[in-house]
């Protein structure tokens, strides 16, 4: 399963970025083969308008099954993400990437 977590940094112990559209990067984890891929989100985060739709399109390219974030994507980003079938989980603000992943595994995060 491919899981994407909005992150402020590139490590397991980096903080989760609460924001979706303007998140610093996307921490992408494939729990079947253990591979990690970091997708830089600088280009969307710097947009004056439409950061959410652009970030959603970026995330969609990785084809994740799960997205974990803090506040949750806005309406526009949400309508892009809903086309991809990804399940969005929120409430990971204040956690590290690892804590957020573990919380999701333990069923402690709620669906957006």
């Amino acid at each position, binding site marked *: 399963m491919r899981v994407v977590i909005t992150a402020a940094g590139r490590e397991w112990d980096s903080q989760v970025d609460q924001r979706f559209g303007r998140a610093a990067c996307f921490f992408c984890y494939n729990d079947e083969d253990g591979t990690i891929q970091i997708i830089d989100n600088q280009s*969307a985060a710097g*947009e004056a*308008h*439409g*950061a*959410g*739709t*652009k970030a*959603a*399109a970026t995330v*969609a390219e990785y084809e994740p099954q799960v997205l974990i974030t803090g506040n949750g994507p806005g309406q*526009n980003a949400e*309508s*892009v993400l809903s*086309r*991809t079938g990804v399940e969005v989980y929120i409430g990971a603000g204040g956690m590290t990437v690892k804590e957020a992943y573990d919380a999701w595994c333990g069923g402690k995060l709620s669906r957006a």
Partner: protein
Amino acid sequence: MNIAIASGKGGTGKTTVSVNLTSYLCRTRPAVLVDLDVEEPNAGLFLETEVVSKTITYKQIPVWNQASCTSCGLCARVCEFNAVIQIKDDILIFPELCHSCGACVGLCPANALVMESKEMGVITHSRKEKLDFVESRLNPGEEQAVPQIRETKSYLARNFNDSMLCIMDAPPGTSCPVVEVVRDADVVLFVAEPTPFGLHDLQLAVKAARSLGKEPAVIINRVGIGNEDTESFCREQSLRVIARIPNDREIARSYSDGKLLFEEFPSVRSAMESVKGYLDEAEQRFFANQAKANQAKVRQEINP
């Protein structure tokens, strides 16, 4: 001749100045007040004009025709505003983000996108004696002020002569909507406030105006609060301060009753008289330039 009344900081008195100035001028001459603060126009609260016409405005939004699409993705790549998004073979369009630039439609090699009209807002034209009032209002939920302002400017061009004095009450800030108002104004007036916040935003606004090749003049409102820094800034920058309105609780009270201030307060009346003097000078220059341009045109026609 177009006069833009802008500010940088919100709440400095743009509408107060616009309404009072236009009403003051219209005692003796015709003028148009244009409320271009399209997200929250409120100049109408102070006027008792009668509606002449209402015009619905439309913006152009691309619509996708899946059948002819080849999924090349060019439309999504050229969109500067992320209003066109490609998800595999799907194209999603977000009308609220769209600036109606037409790049996606123009560049689509398969003609799979066409522009369609979408209702955006309304322009209400009203009148009382010599004063014409044009209120531009964006529909709730619409995010883009610029297309609505552009439509209103084209409405003005269709309905009024070039030489008509149009006083345009701009939105606050220094972003695109303000730029759209200021960019082809003949005179730019900033209503400033002598506070640190007011000065900060005035500095930004002056920078924005100058980068558009406009030299603004300043009206300082609520003189007596804050500090001297706004005055010093204007001196250092050789900005002409053409009027000052004192900070007065009674002025605020009268404003909140929706009254015209120059009728009641000599300080406001003399401020409006000063602004009028500045506009008279600007108008002479405007007509002189127009005459020169006309002569050049005639010369060109006679002797091409």
